[in-house]
């Protein structure tokens, strides 16, 4: 008897990978609905003459979000490497001051990078301080334009999103609306999950129509994640909701405390405690090692897919709007 594997833990790397897989399926279905088998001349008439350009613009914004998220994952990979240094050092037996200091150094760099909130712009006032604390990897995180803000981007993507009513709700307006909501939610989730530039003021309410049946699970997720987000914002943490990051932050903090209070020789009890933490850190790093690169590849796949779909829709649009405005001569 087949027993399906348990669902991945909420907000873990695998959870996000599942989310992206689901998104890709929805996108494929949506494109089929939009592009094939429909009368393309509808595209130049209301309401599609407004909805489709909106959709295309939203897609472009989403491309930038994907890029920011890719960079964010890169930063997390960097954290993973620091974690691996610390774990390897602390797994030496017998443990001595040398290994503990080594681990502490890696953990301190890690935590500093995590705790810095993401409005710490590399070219801003605190640039010098940030550079010292981060240990000169400024260009690692923010490879996007200085003025770009993930929070503002999500905000912009959520405008003009109203459920079609009455006569409009037949035809293509509804699928476009549904897909747009899905897109905004997924982008929001990614931005909340991994470190991205400038997430201050990230909205925790999106125009998800909770009264509509299909949107309820999404609404529930949004609420749950929104709560988590608000909690983290209060603590001033610049990491993200990704489960592995959260766990890493906790375990790194506790290991640093351990390192600060380390005295040789280590009591058996303390040693056992520490071993548990170190094992957890090693496991988190292992999960990251396995999952982060595939996650990046998936984000890239989402990017490519949106580019392609957008190009196809544009092609249809260009054919349809053949009748151009007449010129005087």
């Amino acid at each position, binding site marked *: 008897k087949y027993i399906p594997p348990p669902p991945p833990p909420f907000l873990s790397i695998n959870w996000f990978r599942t989310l992206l897989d689901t998104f890709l399926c929805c996108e494929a279905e949506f494109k089929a609905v939009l592009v094939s088998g429909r009368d393309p001349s509808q595209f130049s008439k209301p309401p599609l003459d407004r909805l489709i350009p909106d959709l295309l613009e939203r897609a472009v914004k989403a491309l*930038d979000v994907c890029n920011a998220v890719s960079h964010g994952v890169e930063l997390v990979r960097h954290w993973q490497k620091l974690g691996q240094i610390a774990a390897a050092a602390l797994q030496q037996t017998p443990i001595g001051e040398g290994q503990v*200091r080594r681990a502490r150094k890696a953990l301190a760099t890690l935590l500093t990078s995590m705790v810095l909130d993401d409005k710490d712009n590399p070219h801003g006032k605190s640039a010098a301080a940030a550079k010292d604390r981060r240990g000169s990897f400024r260009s690692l995180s923010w490879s996007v334009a200085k003025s770009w803000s993930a929070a503002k981007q999500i905000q912009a993507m959520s405008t003009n999103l109203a459920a079609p009513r009455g006569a409009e709700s037949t035809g293509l307006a509804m699928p476009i609306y549904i897909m747009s909501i899905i897109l905004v939610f997924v982008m929001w989730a990614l931005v909340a999950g991994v470190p991205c530039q400038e997430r201050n003021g990230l909205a925790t309410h999106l125009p998800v129509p909770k009264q509509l049946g299909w949107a309820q699970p999404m609404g529930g997720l949004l609420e749950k994640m929104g709560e988590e987000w608000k909690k983290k914002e209060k603590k001033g943490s610049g990491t993200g909701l990704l489960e592995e990051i959260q766990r890493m932050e906790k375990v790194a903090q506790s290991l640093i405390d351990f390192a600060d209070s380390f005295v040789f020789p280590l009591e058996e009890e303390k040693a056992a405690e520490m071993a548990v933490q170190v094992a957890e850190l090693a496991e988190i790093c292992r999960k990251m090692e396995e999952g982060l690169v595939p996650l990046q590849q998936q984000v890239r796949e989402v990017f490519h897919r949106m580019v392609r779909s957008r190009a196809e829709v544009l092609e249809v649009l260009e054919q349809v709007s*053949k009748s*151009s405005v007449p010129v005087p001569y």
Partner: protein
Amino acid sequence: MGDCNNASTESGMEEAEEELIAAAQRILKALESKKYLTEDARKILANLGLQLTNMTSLFAESRVIEVESNEEHNEIELQLNRISDKIMVWEKDESMIWDCGPDEAFEYLKAVEESRRLTEVLENRSPDSRNDDSTLLRRAHDLLQTGMNRLEDEFRHLLVQNRQPFEPEHMSFRSSEEDSMIEAGSVISSGDDSVDDVAAAAVHRDSMGRSSVDYVIELVNVDVIPDLKSIANLMFDSNYGRECSQVFANVQRDALDDCLFILEVEKLSIEEVVKMEWKLLNSKIRSWIRAMKLFVRVYLASEKTLAERIFEDLDSVGSVCFAESSKAAVLQLLNFCEAVAVGPHQPEKLMRILDMYEVLAGVIPDIAGLYSGEAGTCVTTECKDILKRLGECAKATFLEFKNTVASSVSTNPFPGGGVHPLTKYVMNYFKTLTDYTKTLDEVLRDEKDENTPREEEEEEEGPTGTQFRSFFDILETNLEVKSSLYKDEALRNLFLMNNIHYMAEKVRGSELRIVLGDEWIRKRNWKFQQHAMNYERATWSSILFLLKDEGIQNPGSNSISKTLLKERLQGFYAAFEEVYKNQSGWSIPDGRLRDDLHISTSLKVIQAYRTFVGRHINHISEKHIKYSADDLEDLLLDLFEGSQKSLHGGHRK
């Protein structure tokens, strides 16, 4: 309780030993008196003898080992004390060791290497050596970590302090001609002047696809490379390779970021690029093209060499570090391509997109050569994807332009019947496009227009030729439609004559001739000449009728009626003046064509007039001759100048 056991074991052992000694003494005694031994006995005793020898030598050995172990332990401890001083003294010192001179650096390295060696020695010592070995081991690791920590900082310091400034202006193959080409090529106006600039500059354009030899510069002062190498080797030997790689990757990533900044490559979001106004985007693309070639062929190549030199003794570390540090910069450059490919398909963009396509296609082999393994496949695949998208964008832009031309609708006829701005734009556009025929062949493949009838010479033609033909057919069709707006048939034909002549001349006088072939030109020549003839007929046929000899006789006789003659002449003059009034405002922009028509008209009309007047001069009074043939000849020259004149009232005599 344990003690008790020990005591009983000990006394047990003592007892057993006493028994052994007693047995041995008995054997000795027995041997003293024995003269003869059986075979068996001898064997047993020999065995015993052997066993005894082994035992004693083993015992002796372990005694030696123990002594040696103690000696070694003490030696190690002494060593640790010595190097501890050497290492710890720097912990209080703020200055960088490598700034203090090669001797200091060498001593420090030696000390740290020694601590590493000692950890190895201590770890390999036999497990039942002294307990306080572990203390020494701890100390050794402690020293090692201190050393590694310090070396990390020194490594970073050396890399940063010895960076050579990157000055792209001094790069020898950056040609200013290239810049002027791109400048001129960005403006495709309707005027022929700027088009000549484009043509001239286009000749200078180098084949950007050509892959030149990588030009490696010294990114870091070559004097410190051996130091960096020594530190890296030691760190890796000591199992601190991760820390070393990270420092290198971080520092170099920043350096590459700076490089892009110097090359004026901005961090733009895709949205910004998509919304950017063309003039600004054009200059950004210029920067990108310049940057891309320099960056890949010079800077990246140099980065790789640097990594390989520093990590020379360490297998694949160099290429891994290089991949890590350069990833972000390469992605940033590629992202700009993506953004341009995603943008709107305005026709003026096509040349720039093709430029980017060619540059990217040109550097892909270089990139493939710089990266190996998985990182290599990843980056190269990414590049090829983006190249494909650029190609698709180029094709879409081209087809969109075709679309625009096909559906361009005018409400009024073009005043003056001259060359339509659309014709000029399209022909100049395509003249510039001939620079890109090879790339266009790649990009336009599989999009053969099924609607154009294929003639013989098109069989071997590439997609470019087919597309160009098809495009010009569409232009011609569009011009025909535009010409139907003219109510006046003469003007309609003049318009078509002008435009088709323009097209033919443009093709004949440029590389388009190679693309389209002489047959195409011949056909267009024939066409515009047809229109010229139609124009003449439409203008002059009815007027020339007036200069015929039939019908000027008096009814019923053969004599010429003076009245009818006068009427004829007056009719002729009126019609001529009408033509003059209208057609002086018409335009034939091409000088030679204008001359041709003047001559042709003169031959037809003026000659007929001259003959007519000459023949009937006896029947015409001078006052009825308004214009001499020469006068008319002169007036004809006013035709097609594009400025309307009138002859009412004034005439020359």
